[in-house]
């Protein structure tokens, strides 16, 4: 199994605050890496550094063995990585179909092919009837599904999901879990941030726990669940 994505010594500071402190992690194709930690632990910052939104102050990011540290986000995206956001960032005044077409605008396929693929994606997410609506007309949960579909359009080998279940009702959660299982089943490397420990433990092959920018534990689901450092970080003493 090849390493799809890797960070070495990744560090990010905001003024005096150290958001990420020398973080080393890796995920291979077909693996789902769960990332847990309390608010402010650095999880979203990690994703932002990986995809190029933030420039790290130290360390490196490797995608399929290639160093992408410091590259602008659109270059990193083309290396084969997609993501969703904690608070949905859909293109509000564009139709659902157009939202899905954005990541594949520079693909050589014809408009008709891409539109067909987008419609297929929307059908899988059960949003097909709303395909001509503006994204801002969707509910929060629907927007999260839209983001997932948008992320999958260019069929990236690496996907990052930032709190996909936050604020989503249980039936939709179950639906999302099935979609995520499909992703790793298809051979993608999945990075998954969530506070929903049940879902994390169900979906992840490995888990990494962050606290105050540092990795305090990593291993299989069983190791993490009973790890005293993790329990302390979540519950305090």
């Amino acid at each position, binding site marked *: 199994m090849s390493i799809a994505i890797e960070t070495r010594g990744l560090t990010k500071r905001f003024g005096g605050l150290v958001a990420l402190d020398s973080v080393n992690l890796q995920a291979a194709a077909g693996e789902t890496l769960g990332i847990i930690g309390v608010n402010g632990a650095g999880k979203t910052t990690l994703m932002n550094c990986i995809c190029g939104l933030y420039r790290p102050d130290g360390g490196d990011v490797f995608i399929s063995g290639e160093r992408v540290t410091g590259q602008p986000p659109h270059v990193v995206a*083309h290396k084969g990585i*997609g993501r969703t956001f904690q608070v949905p*960032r859909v*293109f509000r*005044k564009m139709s659902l179909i*157009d939202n899905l077409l*954005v*990541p594949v605008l520079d693909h050589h396929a014809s408009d008709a092919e891409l539109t067909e693929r987008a419609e297929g994606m929307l059908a899988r997410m059960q949003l097909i009837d709303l395909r001509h609506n*503006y994204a801002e007309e969707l509910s929060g949960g629907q927007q999260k599904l839209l983001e997932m579909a948008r992320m999958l359009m260019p069929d990236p080998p690496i996907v990052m999901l930032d709190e996909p279940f936050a604020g989503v009702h249980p039936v939709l959660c179950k639906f999302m879990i099935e979609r995520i299982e499909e992703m790793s089943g298809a051979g993608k490397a999945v990075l998954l941030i969530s506070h929903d420990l049940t879902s994390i433990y169900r979906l992840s092959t490995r888990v990494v726990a962050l606290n105050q920018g540092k990795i305090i534990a990593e291993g299989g689901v069983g190791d993490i669940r009973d790890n005293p450092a993790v329990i302390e970080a979540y519950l305090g003493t």
Partner: protein
Amino acid sequence: MTASSRAQDSADRIYFTLVALIGGALMIYFASVPVLGLNVAFHFYLMLWITMASAFNVSSGFSGYLPFGYVAFYGIGAFTTAILVKKAAFPVFLALPFSGVAGLVLALLFAPTLRLSGIYFGIVSLALAGICRLVITNMPEEITGGSFGLQLGSRAHPVQSFYVMMAVMVVALGTILWLSRSRLGKALRATRDDADAAEMMGVNVPRVRLYGWMLAAFFPAVCGGVEAWYTNVVDTETAFNTLITAKTVIYAVAGGLGTVTGPILGAVAMVWLDELIWRQFPLLNLLILGVATVALVLFLPRGIVGSILRRKPQWRRFVP
């Protein structure tokens, strides 16, 4: 063929029928103005404003900027044509494309401002237009005519320049129609809605913004050139008049930013209104423009077309 691609085909049919109807009506109407003896001047300026408002829409409605110094492109186009015709003995037809190029060059020069957020961009745009005006006013009189401006000589041909303006308008509208359906158009709108997210989805945001900006700069520059030819005179007061930006912005907003038909409708409605008011109350012209703007923002912020589409969102796919 799937059911939904059949539906898409019929939506496209309606869309393009509307395009043909509106485009055809515009072309036939304007083409016959000189022939039927209608007011050439009025219709010349109507075409000018339709073009200006539509081009402005590319940078505002499609891209999300408010260039309050938009007149800079118009002015540079006017002066380029005037200087080439008067000082370098260019035939007008050769000078006009150079005006367009001048607009593109200025856009490239101003490109660093595209990084700025809403307010800052607007203010800097205004300041840069001011700098342009001052620079040209202070250039040697042999080149730009100092405070008296330049006269193009007796090369004015009202009917010829009328039809050239019409050609410019048709090309502009055609380009903007293409843009609204094209991949560049989608990239622009995604950038407008959320630039960072667009970038993370693979859109080369700086490059896309630059292309949109250059497109939006080309047409007002050519308009400036054609108008210089039509009126036969160019000076910094009129070529860089802030009222040009004001009218462009207001006409575009009145129709509705973000659609192709919006600025056309807005320009037609407002120019017609302007003509009506001006005939009856020549002194109140500026006042009515100001009050109309405030009223528009308060009561019709999405413009005519925008407000209709808000009520009937299902019509969005059919309306160009």
